[in-house]
């Protein structure tokens, strides 16, 4: 159910930018989605079609680009994917530091729109 407010937000932002650019139609919307978001592409597309109905974005294609989960080491700056970690703590595979943070995989970002 949370897909609907998310789609309303995506379409609202796209229409606002299209309007500001003096465009008459939105042809495509590019969205970056982190894999941790767990958003289902098929559902998202059907919600998108529903929300855009009767707007300048009707019929536009929604292009989702998935970003993979990656950690960044705060000690040496290396990035690495989550893997099986035996001890319970995530450690940097390069310098063994435990000061790591999620660098990507959590995004939900409207990257760009194609308009005429």
């Amino acid at each position, binding site marked *: 159910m949370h897909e609907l407010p998310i789609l309303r*937000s995506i379409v609202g932002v796209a229409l606002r930018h299209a309007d500001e650019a003096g465009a008459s139609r939105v042809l495509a919307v590019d969205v970056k989605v982190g894999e941790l978001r767990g958003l289902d592409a098929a559902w998202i597309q059907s919600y998108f079609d529903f929300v855009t109905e009767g707007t300048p974005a009707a019929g536009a294609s929604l292009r989702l680009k998935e970003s993979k989960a990656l950690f960044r080491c705060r000690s040496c700056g290396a990035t690495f994917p989550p893997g099986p970690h035996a001890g319970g703590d995530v450690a940097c595979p390069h310098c063994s530091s435990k000061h790591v943070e999620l660098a990507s995989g959590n995004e939900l970002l409207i990257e760009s*729109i*194609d308009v005429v």
Partner: protein
Amino acid sequence: MAEIRTIDIKEAVLSENAGLADRLRRRLMESGTFLLDVMSSPGAGKTTLLLETIHRLRERGIRTAVIEGDIESTVDAEKMAAAGVKAVQLRTGGACHLDAAMIEAALHELAPGDYDMIAIENVGNLVCPAEFDTGAHRRTMLLSVPEGHDKALKYPLMFTVVDCLVVSKTDYLPGSDFDLAALRAEARRLNPTLTVFEVSARTGDGMQGWCDWVADGIRGVADARDGALDC
């Protein structure tokens, strides 16, 4: 035929909600009120944990109010009221989560300055509430022992957005195949800075550490307010 143009946007989805949440967070900081968002699936024990927590914090002189989020009914708010706790019931009428605008509306029913903490009991759901910043200073999730230890794999976003995981109903651990070490490993894989407590509100086991963590958050907000006033 008009030429197709690409417009760069780079704007986060739900940025409107995030902006309102930031404003609420600042406003509550200024009134010295700590806002705690408590999330879990239905039946993980949010109401019971909150009641026991509020009772224990009251002994430390901490005044708490609760915002109850439910799709329907006022059952939880009634439980709070019966325990002498000020509660505002939000009925979402079908929506599966609370957002910042709903919290702002609920705050109209409370005088935040009268409370050291306002706890949000979010709608029982491990998926949708993760997406919506409510303006809380800290976010907590509960996972009860009967639900099983594999939930981090199924609801990864929730595990990445919270500051604290409370494993609740640990009185059900004896005789169960719940693997605490596996849950900790999987949860920390998603969120390396996650704080984890194992708690039984029924027996009181683990309540002290959890309540200390909540009290620490309350102190942090009070200190930030006093620091801001000094400037």
